[in-house]
């Protein structure tokens, strides 16, 4: 076994056997995400159950026939208790004492208003006992019931008026004379899907990859920095550097080991995350990528290949940076504090680009973000969706150049005594002499 393979295989063994890394990077995503998804699904199902079984109260001050008709409609289509009270105050007291989650209140004058062609007032009270989502949604169900009645009642009124005036046409068309629909143009193709739905789909799918890359890079940075700091703390690095093996071989062997574990971690993360999305959003299927077949939107095999290359170079650049900085730390704790600082430029572009497009930002911020290599992995995932391969290639070239520069610096550091004597505390840059 060559020195490089030997160091890489030692590194993998050490990392895999460390319970913190095995659990935190490999097992946790496999356990945590499916559990989170299951939890979300259970809570959504319980809300649906609560809404289905919700009961309403109806209190009317209006004794007219028109008011009676809406009350009958609501009673017929829901689980409703009609309240008999002397006043609104009395009705509200009864409502609060009941198990009903919403009360439909029809004030006096409702029938009279409608009779003379004015709007009839209806008010819904929601009883927020526990301030939860189910209570709010149940109140909305009562509201929707009134809206449905409103729609059909208005159609009936329009129909009567049309008969009286002997007019032609459809009551529904008279009520809503404009029929609005959307379509999108993507790469010259007209797609009968609204821009909102398409961007929603791209956002929901292209956002997963940057999140995954970000998580993977954070894990990798922490792992690589900890590994180097541990070697320094235990003086195994000092021993390694007196062996007949090139410094660059040590550096690349350690990098290779960390990359392997980071890739295993990211696979585990992807599997866990797919379980999460499958169970968490099972209740809302929505638009699927199948709806966009033939539109040119979606990731092709070439796109996946380029994305893989982006992830790989991003990972190597992050690891090289982490290793270069970790050599200046004395122990694991200070290495972890230092990686905390490295994570900031990783999170900032992720947060900004999650909610905004880079082209919409002021030019200065655009340049700052583009200088950060991790921004490019986020841009690349969207570009892969839209088939903009030149942009991905540009990102790969930029990150690769950045990585080569960082690796060159790391190799330089490794070939000097700075790796033994250099120290960087979390808050200050200084070299502490340590003669003995």
């Amino acid at each position: 076994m060559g020195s490089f393979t030997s160091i890489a295989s030692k590194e993998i063994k050490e990392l895999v056997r460390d319970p913190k890394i095995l659990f935190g990077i490999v097992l946790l995503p496999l356990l945590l995400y499916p559990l989170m998804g299951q939890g979300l699904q259970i809570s959504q199902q319980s809300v649906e159950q609560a809404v289905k079984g919700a009961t309403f109260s109806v209190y009317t001050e209006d004794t007219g026939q028109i008011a009676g008709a809406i009350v009958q409609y609501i009673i017929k289509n829901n689980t409703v208790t009609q309240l008999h009270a002397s006043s609104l105050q009395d009705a509200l007291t009864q409502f609060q004492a009941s198990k009903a989650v919403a009360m439909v209140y029809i004030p006096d004058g409702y029938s009279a208003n409608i009779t003379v062609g004015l709007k009839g007032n209806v008010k819904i009270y929601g009883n927020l006992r526990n301030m939860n989502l189910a209570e709010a949604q149940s109140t909305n169900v009562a509201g929707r019931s009134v809206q449905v009645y409103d729609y059909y009642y208005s159609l009936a009124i329009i129909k009567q008026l049309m008969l009286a005036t002997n007019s032609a046409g459809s009551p529904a068309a008279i009520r809503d004379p404009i029929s609005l629909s959307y379509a999108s143009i993507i790469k010259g193709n007209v797609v009968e899907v609204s821009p909102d739905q398409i961007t929603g789909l791209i956002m929901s799918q292209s956002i997963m990859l940057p999140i995954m890359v970000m998580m993977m890079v954070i894990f990798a940075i922490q792992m690589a920095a900890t590994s180097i700091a541990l070697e320094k703390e235990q003086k195994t690095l000092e021993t390694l550097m007196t062996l007949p093996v090139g410094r660059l071989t040590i550096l690349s062997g350690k990098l290779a080991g960390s990359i392997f574990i980071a890739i295993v971690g990211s696979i585990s993360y992807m599997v866990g995350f797919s379980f999460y999305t499958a169970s968490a959003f099972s209740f809302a299927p929505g638009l699927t990528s199948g709806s966009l077949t033939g539109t040119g939107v979606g990731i092709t095999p070439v796109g996946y290949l380029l994305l893989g290359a982006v992830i790989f170079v991003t990972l190597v650049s992050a690891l090289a940076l982490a290793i270069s900085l970790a050599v200046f730390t004395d122990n694991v704790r200070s290495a972890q504090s230092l990686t905390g600082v490295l994570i900031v430029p990783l999170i900032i572009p992720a947060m900004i680009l999650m909610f905004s497009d880079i082209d919409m930002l002021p030019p200065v911020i655009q340049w700052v973000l583009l200088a950060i290599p991790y921004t490019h992995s986020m841009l690349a995932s969207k570009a892969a969706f839209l088939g903009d391969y030149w942009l991905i290639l540009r990102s790969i070239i930029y990150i690769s150049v950045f990585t080569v520069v960082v690796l060159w610096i790391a190799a330089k550091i490794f070939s000097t005594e700075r790796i033994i004597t250099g120290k960087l505390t979390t808050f200050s840059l200084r070299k502490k002499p340590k003669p003995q």
Partner: protein
Amino acid sequence: MAPAITVSDLRKSFGDIQALKGVSFSVEDGEIFGLIGPNGAGKTTTLRILGTLISPTSGSAVVHGYDAVKEPDKVRSILSYLPEDAGAYQYLSGEEYLKFMAGFYAHDKEKANAMVEAARGISGLEGRLKDRVNGYSKGMKRRLLIARALMMKPDVAILDEPTAGLDVIQAYHVRGMIKEYAEKMGVTMLVSSHNMLEVEYLCHRVALVNEGTVVAEGSPQELKERFNAVNLEEAFMEAAHIG
């Protein structure tokens, strides 16, 4: 015959601090040579220069004719270095650790296995080599590390504070291990320590180092006689003009 190690006017500065102010000594082939001095005297800095870890500001360090600064790769191939307080990889077994280290010196599996077997004998850890290092006591770890440093039968072995942090019994065993190996194999050893009794037991000759300079050099007996001292500790105090 040329000395195994020749250190000439070695100087090293860390910023404003001068760690070495012109250290010179030489070690003969097959000799156990000790560097004695308090913490901060410059022992580790000298050993790190010889171990090719750091470069001197001026002066030279030569191991079997190879300059540690100009020919570090040659020096690394004939020298074995054990840093002070060194550890081994926690999640590897003792045997895996030795195999990993042997791989850098042996060019085939047979030679590597022979080195691991040699280490098994030197360390006396036998069956415990199958266990992971994180289950070892401090003494066992040190025995493993010393065995690692000696298993490839280096031309020169540098041991920085080999018994530091060990209790009396563990230190006794480790010292015995080093002495037995050196006598049996005739390996040149450069040992640093601030334990004067240890050095007196182990070394043929010693250099007393204080504040970056060698204040006296000779065999333990010669030094005691020269400074009219009962032991090396007293000789050191006299040589360094302390107290």
